[in-house]
């Protein structure tokens, strides 16, 4: 694992394990893009590769890998399983096992018939087909198009700003008891300064509720109440770091719920009917199982929703003792919630791997759902996007022009392939494949376009 130390820190041992076990199929002619894709996949730790070759009369661009298998092997940490087949022949085998692949990556496919055939095979297999990343580069431009066959669930989205699951607005009894142990009317500033700010915020919310405020709490209300309960201790209280933190994080009390609203919507829209048997990716099946379990628990208890507490507490100004007690409360509750999930799973005789269960419960707010597109692989043929149109034109119907002169709106589109742009796309498309395989981070949904002249890019949904 030492070899993967630097990336383990992005997707954890579980994610790396998924990568090490995954099989990836790369389809296309020998281009710089293809070799960049192979290199990046093998570096990430993927040890089973299949290349479905498209024979090409002219070699386009420069290659640094002379013999793919031989040159890739030293980049892998273990024996590389490697297979080469002809794409045409493979497409004609009705029994070909596509489901063993975690992801299929199409690179610079120029034949429309190949695209049509593959699309047909994919259609026939229903949801049991791996995600397809179709990518094409011409001159200074390129696209990546993701076509899912089943709903993709992200286990951990790793959002930019971590939202802590504090339950300020709906504390559980033990937390309420803890908050009640602090009587602000009977303490000096020194003691006050040792109280975690979340306790202060909960006291504010409680006071607002006592005062008959049932609607949504605003930040101004919070700040006012905070002063009402703190200032009687003395005016110097405003210099205490925990008071400052409480002011700063007052907004945490205002959002409808500590956990993301997005998640509630996700849960509400989830139906048992989503629960088919034909899952290509067991992670998707397991995450869905867990989500439905939460729904069940809520239903059984007549609650509106049940969300397992993640159990992590941010660092805050406090005495160590107060902080440790608070932290313990969160940890104990998180453990309890997890065991409720486990029990409910057991009752419904569902099985989910322990690792997924742990991550799911401890990062519950980070689950995301990505639906398969309404269109299919052929979606690229019917869009109104000018750049995609131009790229598809070059991809399937035109020979790259030999001149560097350009008259249309995309300068440098019809020139020969530029190695740097290929390298860029090799990185980008494998990055998306890694996200799909690890179920960490949110993949592109579902079209990405890049202009290498000015580094602009955009994502669209088709």
């Amino acid at each position: 694992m030492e070899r993967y130390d630097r990336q383990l820190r992005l997707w954890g041992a579980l994610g790396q394990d998924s990568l090490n076990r995954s099989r990836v199929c790369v389809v296309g002619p020998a281009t710089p893009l293809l070799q960049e894709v192979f290199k990046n996949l093998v570096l990430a730790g993927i040890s089973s590769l299949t290349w479905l070759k498209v024979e090409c009369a002219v070699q386009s661009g420069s290659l640094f890998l002379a013999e793919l298998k031989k040159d890739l092997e030293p980049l892998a940490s273990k024996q590389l399983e490697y297979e080469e087949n002809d794409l045409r022949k493979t497409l004609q085998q009705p029994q070909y096992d596509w489901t063993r692949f975690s992801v299929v990556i199409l690179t610079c496919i120029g034949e429309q018939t190949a695209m049509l055939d593959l699309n047909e095979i994919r259609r026939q297999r229903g949801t049991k087909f791996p995600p397809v990343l179709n990518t094409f580069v011409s001159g200074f431009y390129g696209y990546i198009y993701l076509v899912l066959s089943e709903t993709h669930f992200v286990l951990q989205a790793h959002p930019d700003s971590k939202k802590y699951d504090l339950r300020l607005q709906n504390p559980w009894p033990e937390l309420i008891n803890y908050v009640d142990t602090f009587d602000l009317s009977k303490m000096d500033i020194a003691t006050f300064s040792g109280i975690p700010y979340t306790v202060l915020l909960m006291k504010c919310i409680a006071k607002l509720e006592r005062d008959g405020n049932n609607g949504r709490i605003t930040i101004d209300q919070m700040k006012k109440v905070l002063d009402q309960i703190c200032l009687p201790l003395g005016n110097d209280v405003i210099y205490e770091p925990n008071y400052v933190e409480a002011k700063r994080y007052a907004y945490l009390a205002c959002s409808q719920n500590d956990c993301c609203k997005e998640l509630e919507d996700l849960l509400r829209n989830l139906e048992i009917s989503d629960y088919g048997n034909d899952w290509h990716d067991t992670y998707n099946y397991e995450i869905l199982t867990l989500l439905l379990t939460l729904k069940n628990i809520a239903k059984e208890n007549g609650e509106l929703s049940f969300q397992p507490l993640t159990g992590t507490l941010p660092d805050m100004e406090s005495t160590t003792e107060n902080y440790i007690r608070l932290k313990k409360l969160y940890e104990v509750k998180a453990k309890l919630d997890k065991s409720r999930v486990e029990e409910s799973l057991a009752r419904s005789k569902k099985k989910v791997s322990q690792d997924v269960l742990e991550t799911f419960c401890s990062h519950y707010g980070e689950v995301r759902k990505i639906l398969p597109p309404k269109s299919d692989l052929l979606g690229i043929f019917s869009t109104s996007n000018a750049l995609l149109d131009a790229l598809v034109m070059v991809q399937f119907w035109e020979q790259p022009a030999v001149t560097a002169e350009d008259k249309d709106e995309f300068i440098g589109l019809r020139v020969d392939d530029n190695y740097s742009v290929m390298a860029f796309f090799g990185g980008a498309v494998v990055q998306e494949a890694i996200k799909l395989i690890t179920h960490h981070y949110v993949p592109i949904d579902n079209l990405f376009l890049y202009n290498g002249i000015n580094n602009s890019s955009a994502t669209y949904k088709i």
Partner: protein
Amino acid sequence: MPRETSLVTIIGEDSYKKLRSSRCLLVGAGGIGSELLKDIILMEFGEIHIVDLDTIDLSNLNRQFLFRQKDIKQPKSTTAVKAVQHFNNSKLVPYQGNVMDISTFPLHWFEQFDIIFNALDNLAARRYVNKISQFLSLPLIESGTAGFDGYMQPIIPGKTECFECTKKETPKTFPVCTIRSTPSQPIHCIVWAKNFLFNQLFASETSGNEDDNDQDWGTDDAEEIKRIKQETNELYELQKIIISRDASRIPEILNKLFIQDINKLLAIENLWKTRTKPVPLSDSQINTPTKTAQSASNSVGTIQEQISNFINITQKLMDRYPKEQNHIEFDKDDADTLEFVATAANIRSHIFNIPMKSVFDIKQIAGNIIPAIATTNAIVAGASSLISLRVLNLLKYAPTTKYTDLNMAFTAKASNLSQNRYLSNPKLAPPNKNCPVCSKVCRGVIKLSSDCLNKMKLSDFVVLIREKYSYPQDISLLDASNQRLLFDYDFEDLNDRTLSEINLGNGSIILFSDEEGDTMIRKAIELFLDVDDELPCNTCSLPDVEVPLIKANNSPSKNEEEEKNEKGADVVATTNSHGKDGIVILDDDEGEITIDAEPINGSKKRPVDTEISEAPSNKRTKLVNEPTNSDIVELD
């Protein structure tokens, strides 16, 4: 099919010729460096020079695809060059060395290049190369990645923002007292174990006193400071135990660190008025041997396991100590040193009621580990190599008319990809008028022969500069590398010394400022001393730089925006103590130019103002950044 054809069609015959005859410098052959080297080789730069200090490590292999298991411990630069031979069509020159080492890489060595690619992993080297690029007006393509995040920024001196035009995050520091007396977070204990305990035991000299004059103690409590100092002296006693190699004495170390010292802390009662008291270990905990569980690096284990691990690992390091010339450095990839720091930090955490951490987590914190993956590096290196075509203006159909039309690239956080942002591409900004590196002062290179350095007196040197750039009588001269005052109106003690006698030499940067003008002053000039033995005797050639008159800051500025920009960004030369050796030490904030709010009594201080408003900024920077006696390729 010959490879050139493809490239010729992309950039055209003329540009291709230019590309084949250009030389580039690649600083760093690590993550981004490996990718960049491949990309620029396949782009067919004529000549590529690669500098890297490092050797290859196992944890590099997940992204640095030019390296193999068998290359571990080999130098990166030469190994990379060997690995690319089979697809290489450029002249490659590798160097294993530190790019900041002026004796290996003097300024005139950099002059041979047309463009520099930075593929570095640290701030100090980035700043250094940026400075070099500014002195030589060499375009620089700066880049960096951390996990899924990456950026690429072309820097065209005088035309676009330099690396220092925006503030960079600097490593966090903690007050001594938090680390030594009142830790409250795991990181405090890790810093204690690594920077303090480990260094004292294994990496410091056996004698000497801690230099504590400029310490930020983080407390005014005399009793506590006294205790910290005493504790330091006692640590020398512990080091003697290490030297004795007597494993039976290891419990003494535990006893001292985790019982006696904690009890001493507990005795200082005012520390614990609002804090939870630490609980020292008990004698029985220290003296009860447990079986060491070989726990996984991502689990924590019990306190008893930590203690026995501490005993074992200390013994191991004790045995290594004499074999390694009584000096072991902490290295995150040296499992023994990491284990020592982890167990010591965890025992301390336990005592202070702080959660213990796994070795895996501690490695990240103690080793400043930044996550790194091949894909982000490939994306950033692709964007860097691509933009170089536009920086060198080789794309006929996308000509570069204005450098501020070029774009940098930031990859957005991976989780934002679905929100319509893969990459943001702001246009390059013009230089920040208040940037101390590229805009606040004029800049140039003095070419000196070494005999001249040894013969020329400071007073003559001052006259030379004063006359060349029409400075008034009253000036000050500063050694900018360490903020030493060398000369001003009431400090002339060094006048009769030669340049080498006052420790100026190759790579010294001096700051020459007008201290006379009232309303208008001559802009300050920063001069780089490039000592070159190939130069004929008696060479001291000053660069042809036009140094403009600017408005002094005591006259009110009319331009509001300018005023706003000025806040807190002025270069201030403040003298506050005259040293015994006749050298004045100026306020020094880790070698950087200090930003000082309060005037110090008896000091002479005047911020150098922003440029005069009637001189158009573009024109000025252009003049400043074109040393005429260097053979730099014209960018326009």
